[in-house]
């Protein structure tokens, strides 16, 4: 009989323990964090470490990491959102946000921002990124890393060509003159590594438009400026670097980001366009170039260039938006953005960090910081992918000389205008 009672007590204890464990498990919410940077090095390990620290601090939240390849990031998120099973937190390129908002995939973050400090909280982030993420008055993403495009140049090649590396070109005319001196096809060397492969060709071209006082769209996205006089002038200048002045190596329509960095690392070109990540990319490809690479602003009438960035957003289908917000807020804490800068060489988006000793006193970052302060955002337009296709078609047609630059720009302008209607 006693034995039977003991068994009953044991069974009861196990049942209670099981029930308590179940309740505890249910109290712990699980969120999915999808990010292509998780699959990259050194960004992935750095982010993973931060997420682990977040889970230690927030014992009621379990974060399931969902690394995704950079090429699959779009179709995976779109498919999951359409299928009703999106990740809770997702990293998105600024250019993709308007399309996702239009499709109803993202949650407005205004209420959460208001709780976190409202205006004071959001004003610390780079204004061009905050502006880009504010769609129809609502905020859809918190910038995590971002910077502006600059021109990287090889000081050794400048010196060899008899040019002063301390005085980079400041106008389009000066740029052509310098580029001609840097070009020597017999030695397999050209001045400028033009990137015109379809994926990011027009984004890389945008800075030249901006520097000439134009852009692809007007400020309220009601018209295109591609075929405006300043737009056509910038487009013609850019195309003729290859077709007329011959300062670009053959086959620019095939040159993608990796090829561009390789051309520069192999010293086949003296100048390339790139964000801050390019700086590290060059030295990874050729460590001997350390100390021989500098950044310059885009030459032209206006001191500005394209500002890029990625943001953290919460998917509409998230079952735990509050927990998702806590993760976003944690990853964006000043100390974590600084850690990400140190470990993954990604520029922070908090302006207060630009004043930190680590960044403000780094001479390598002077030009980049100036560029970020005056940056104009990448196009934030709901039909950007289609407009981009028209721009790439125009660029390829002009580079392959099937159309004149003026004709190609005008046709692209007409096609984009039709799209906007």
């Amino acid at each position, binding site marked *: 009989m006693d034995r039977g009672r003991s068994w009953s007590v044991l069974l009861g204890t196990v049942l209670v323990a099981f029930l308590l464990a179940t309740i505890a498990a249910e109290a712990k919410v699980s969120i999915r964090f999808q990010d292509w940077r998780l699959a990259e090095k050194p960004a992935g390990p750095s982010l993973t470490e931060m997420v682990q620290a977040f889970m230690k601090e927030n014992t009621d939240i379990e974060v399931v990491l969902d690394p995704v390849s950079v090429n699959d990031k779009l179709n995976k998120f779109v498919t999951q959102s359409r299928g009703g099973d999106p990740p809770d937190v997702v990293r998105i390129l600024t250019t993709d946000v308007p399309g996702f908002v239009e*499709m109803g995939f993202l949650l407005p973050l205004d209420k959460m921002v208001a709780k976190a400090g409202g205006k004071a909280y959001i004003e610390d982030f780079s204004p061009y990124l905050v502006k880009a993420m504010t769609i129809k008055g609502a905020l859809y993403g918190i910038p995590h890393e971002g910077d502006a495009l600059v021109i990287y140049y090889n000081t050794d090649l400048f010196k060899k060509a008899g040019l002063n590396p301390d005085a980079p070109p400041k106008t389009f005319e000066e740029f052509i003159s310098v580029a001609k001196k840097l070009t020597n096809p017999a030695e397999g060397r050209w001045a400028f590594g033009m990137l015109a492969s*379809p994926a990011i060709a027009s984004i890389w071209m945008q800075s030249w438009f901006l520097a000439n006082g134009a852009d692809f769209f007007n400020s309220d996205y009601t018209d295109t400026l591609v075929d405006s006089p300043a737009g056509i002038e910038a487009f013609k200048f850019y195309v003729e670097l290859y077709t007329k002045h011959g300062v670009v190596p*053959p086959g620019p329509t095939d040159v993608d980001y990796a090829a561009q960095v390789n051309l520069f690392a192999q010293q*086949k070109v003296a100048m390339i366009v790139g964000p801050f990540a390019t700086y590290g990319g060059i030295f990874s490809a050729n460590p001997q170039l350390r100390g021989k690479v500098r950044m310059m602003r885009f030459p032209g009438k206006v001191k500005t260039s394209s500002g890029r960035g990625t943001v953290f957003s919460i998917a509409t289908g998230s079952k735990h938006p509050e927990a998702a917000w806590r993760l976003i807020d944690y990853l964006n804490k000043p100390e974590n953005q600084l850690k990400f800068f140190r470990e993954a060489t990604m520029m922070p988006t908090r302006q207060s960090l630009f004043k930190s000793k680590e960044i403000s006193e780094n001479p390598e970052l002077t030009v980049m910081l100036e560029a970020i302060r005056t940056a104009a955002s990448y196009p934030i337009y709901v039909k950007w992918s289609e407009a981009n296709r028209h721009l790439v078609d125009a660029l*390829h047609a002009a580079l*392959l000389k099937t159309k004149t630059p003026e004709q190609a720009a005008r046709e692209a302008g007409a096609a984009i205008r039709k799209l906007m209607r």
Partner: protein
Amino acid sequence: MNKIHFLRSFTPAREAYRCRWFGGERAGYLFVTPAILFLTVVLIFPLAYAAYLAFHEVLPQFGIKFVGLDNFRRALSDTHFWGSLRTTVIFTVVSVTLHMVLGFLLALMLSQRLKGSVFFRLLLLLPWMVSQVVAGVTWRWILNAQYGVANAVLTRIGILHKDMPWLADVHLAFLSIVVAYAWQCFPFVMIMLYAGLQTIPKEQYEAAQIDGASAIQALRFVTIPNLQYVILVTSLMDFIWAFRAFDLIKVLTDGGPLRSTELLSILVYRTSFEYYQFGYASAIAMVMLLVVLAFSLVYTKLMIPREG
């Protein structure tokens, strides 16, 4: 009515009961049910949903609107669709022809049982084993205008006098995707034809030899007729694969330059995942399916001789 044999060992009453349930067609249906369920989930449902989407417009905020044949009408008036269709048809015809010729010649060589033929058979099969994305990246490096191996080798042996922009010229880019795709896909044709060659009775060649047939005549009157069905099935499969080729071309050229290599599959991908026009993309995909189906039906009807 046929009975299932293993049930015979059971007791007579149970056997009679089970035979009533499992006998004949019912048993057959029962056995194929898992396969049908599996196919419904992975094949029939996505296909039916794509067909459904082709007649709808996917609206923002998860909305959907019936648009009848509008998506198909739009395709018919879309110059990019016709451009992609033309590129796809030319690519498919050239690729299948190249694969068949190359595969046939290599299969003939391998069947000569020369020394080391097993090694060469394995070596020639390697491209087929490589994933299309890896093949695309590899070929992208090989064909790079500035530091690619293709230009370096061809210039060194004197075939080229200057570097060629293989992926940056409209015509060269098309040629490049055909060559890269052939490199990856000919091994399949080769191995199928090689297997077919092994089944041809030696006596037929001996008889042809006695009749004084030359090597070409033996090929024409013995080899090819014997391989007729293998050629039919292989070329049909190769046609279907080439018509919907995607990964390798996406990585290699992304449809450029100037859309010269934008196959229908790439247009479908772009329309759905870049422009978010799922209805229109589904309509193009349905047209692709119809083209492949129509071709397969006509081809098999023409190629398979009627009984009697």
